[in-house]
């Protein structure tokens, strides 16, 4: 079971959380002006990296708040969690930087 650091509560087991998919995909301000292709891309297209992945998590059995996390998809190591709205931290790209869990 993963150990996830909620920015508001601290480290808690995975069962308290729910993953909400890829982060930093803002809902467009004016969907009506978008082409069908652009809208479909917003709706359905996601990256699927091997390595660091920024994703949304919610501490739904805790404080109830959403936050973002950088997780290594190879090792499942959580490199960093950060508040919604904050930019993606620069934590390198290689999964090798994250092979050792904290």
């Amino acid at each position, binding site marked *: *079971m993963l*150990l996830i650091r909620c920015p508001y509560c601290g480290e808690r087991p995975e069962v308290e959380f729910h993953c909400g998919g890829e982060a930093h995909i*803002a*809902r467009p301000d004016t969907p009506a002006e978008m082409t069908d292709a652009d809208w479909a891309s917003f709706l359905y297209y996601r990256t699927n990296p091997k390595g660091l992945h920024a994703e949304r998590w*919610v501490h739904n059995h805790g404080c109830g*708040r959403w936050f973002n996390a950088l997780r290594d998809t190879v090792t499942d190591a959580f490199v960093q969690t950060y508040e919604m709205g904050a930019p993606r931290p620069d934590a390198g790209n290689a999964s090798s930087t994250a092979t*050792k*869990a904290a």
Partner: protein
Amino acid sequence: MSQPFRLPGGGRIDRSKPLSVTFNGKRLEGYRGDTIASMLLASGSHLAGRSFKYHRPRGILTHGSDEPNALLSVDWRPEKGAGRRDPNNRASVVEARDGLSVSTQNHWPSLETDIGVVNDLLAPVFVAGFYYKTFMWPRSFWDKVYEPVIRRAAGLGEAPEVPDADRYANRHAHCDVLVVGAGPAGLSAALAASEDGSKRVMLADEGFALGGSLLQDVTSKIDGQSAAEWVEAAVAKLDARENVVILPRTTVFGYYNHNHVAMVERVSDHLDEARDGLARERLWQVRAGQVVLATGSHERPLVFENNDRPGIMLAESMRAFVNRYAVAPGRSLVVATSSASAYRAALDAKAAGIATRIVDIRLEQDCGPELAQARSAGIEVLTGHTVIKALGGKRVKGLVVAPLGNGGAIGTRRTLDCDCVGMSGGWTPSVHLFSQSRGKLAFDAELDAFLPGQSAQAEISAGACHGVYDLKAVIEDGAKAGGGNITVEATASFTGFQPVRVLPTDVDPGKVRAFIDFQNDVTAKDIKLAVREGFTSIEHVKRYTTTGMATDQGKTSNMNALGLVAGVLDRPLPSVGTTTFRPPYTPVSFGALVGPARDELFDPVRKTPIDAWAEANGAAFEPVSLWRRAWYFPKAGEDMHAAVQRECKAVRTSVGIFDASTLGKIEVVGPDAAEFMNRIYTNAWSKLKVGGCRYGLMLREDGFVYDDGVVARLAEDRFHVTTTTGGAPRVMAHMEDYLQTEWPDLDVFLTSITEQYAVIALQGPNARKVLEPFVTDIDLSEEAFPHMAVREGYICGVPTRLFRVSFTGEAGFEVNVPADYAESVWKALYEHGKQFGITPYGTETMHVLRCEMGFIIVGQETDGTATPDDLGLSGLVSKVKTDFVGKRSLTRPDITAEGRKQLVGLLTKNGQEVLDEGAQIVADPSAQVPMPMLGHVTSSYFSSNCGRSIAMAMVKNGRARMGETLWVTTPSGFTEAVVAPAVFHQVQGAKADA
């Protein structure tokens, strides 16, 4: 049975505490500190079971949890009745306790005489890939032959037939360092790690005594102390430290992500008196900062003909039985080995007064100092000899050996008479937990072993599982893993071995039954056949031959199998691959995993405040999401159909009362509440007046209907939202997600009030009359309180949010009251309503009534791909709003395309026939299969109000098909139905919106 093979002195048994157990109905004697295996050996017997496939007699191979043969069914408390017996316990680790009742497995009629041994004669049938080659055809053989016959013939223990009568506990723990294994490395690591008193250290060992390999070490000295003294001192020191938790009888069986380690502690099986309520086992879930793996190593058997005969065991196990349990495993021993460590077993046995000889595969010059030491102790040693085969059936009688000459020539055979053989083919580090932690293994050719390579987690291996075998180095390695740095003086261990896969023989190897995997009955021949048939990866060979796939996970067999495959392919061993070890390390009882989550705690039932009343009034219940809801209220002699038809009539003609408390309820509050609602729902909310209600529709961003429900505006800045019963949590989550992540600028608070309010629905022409006497502060007149309105006031003196809404088409009210008062309000309404024939109804009647009106249920009519227009609800989609969740998707080409499925009514030609929900709909039942399908039935009931059956369906271009006859599948074929509008009942008199 007395104990003729018990040695007169020594051992770590408590001779002041004699005990007896029942073994296959006979009395077996021993002492505290024994295992069932050592008691059996003390009685002079090795026979402990029959093998999986061939029913060959098997003995005790090991002294630890890697035992593949001696599996027992154990009744832990026979005096307490049924439910305390479990199968497949390894005799070598079952701690002896007075009163245990154990029996051997997989034989009939008895262990000594097992007719299943006929399988052994049929061995050529059960070759590698037997399952794949045999279970193919004919089909009828599956039911008549394979299942009943082969299942019974090949097997392990029998599953218990009654519920487990014991209690199982569950505990979570955190520590800075978790040390797995309390042998010399683990004790040393725990000592070093716990020196800093602020560090929380846990030490777990699967055995009931701490010390690991030192428990059978009677010769080594560590810093001047005997091994036993050193262990005692180490444990005493750890015990005295408050920051240390020592857990004997605790098996670490799973190593998961982020140092989440699962272990099972055997709490009470060993206790003479276990007080009532004491758990049998405890599941620990530990989150460790650092894990030290000190899990030791497994000895490899030698592979030669009949190497599975009872009396043949691993050499180190022979040593353990002699030294730790004070048992002579035989009167005349032969140690067959390619490993130096086995000499220690021979020397110790000899020192205990047992006749012992050694056969060493290694040449004279390849042996170490152990050779001279054995000879000077008077032990006859044959070096450079192979073992051709073992003699004997239910007990080994001798070992046929022969000298190995130059160029593979095998010399003259010689038979060594013996009644017990200790064999050693070297050592395999126990890297199971390291492998589970997703660490990468690295092959060490010198040690002929896979060792821990790159770590994936905060973990470190020490001692034998790290490829370190010499006692001094083991203790120092342990200290280092625990963060210390020490130097000790210790007796040099006999280390080093020569890897041998299958011993050379002078007969056709194709005719030799030499076992690699004892538990799954896989021979060297089987593995060679698999390779010849083209399997070259160990993962494939494993599955094809089942080697290493038994409950012991091939602890004793993996390296022999791997080495054999590599040898046949003439490839370096690592290129064949290694197996991935998965949890559990040893079998874990279901009881421990389930813990307290059984019976009523398995899946707790959510009940409404009215549930007790419904139960007392004879309701039949159905599960709806996590809730149990009253389904219908049968009167004496009524079946479900009769009850539902009566309830439906009552609502349409007088009044019914219904528990709608499970509806999801969310309060949306704040200055921006209306704006938030505008963005979440398809409807426009700004113009909804305070005191008004509206039916709201919610989409996902992809344009498909997500949920629906009535929304009431209680104040400019306060909405009372209702959701479907099953949708409540996900709608709340959906709203929170948007609020927090997309629109954090909106000043809105969301609060789930599902549990706070119970909802009592009164529906029917007389609903108002039932309600009137109890309501204060609300004008119930038609003019003051129209359909789709909400008022706040009191009922029975209790605050209420009173909704004038209807899900039946009749005039109706939904009374929201604080949950704690709901039952008393319900009872008051019910008592008063009796003069009008008030009828409690359940979910089935609710479904029929709403279907008569054509009201959809999200999740029944919709399947996650229905748009508002598909459901005929485009009128609920605001044309004015520029944006809301899902709006943009409603103009995507696929959503606006022709040919989508649309909601319609279906009327069977025969009005008495009720369609199956989920039934498929086609235009032409004689069309070629697979025939084009037009849609499916979503709801179907018999409606007494309509005097016929009614159904709703999603049908391709449905709205353009009014009056068309279609065909619907039935269990026996097809039936005709006509497409009609999805409204079946016209409400008479005082209508909902009158």
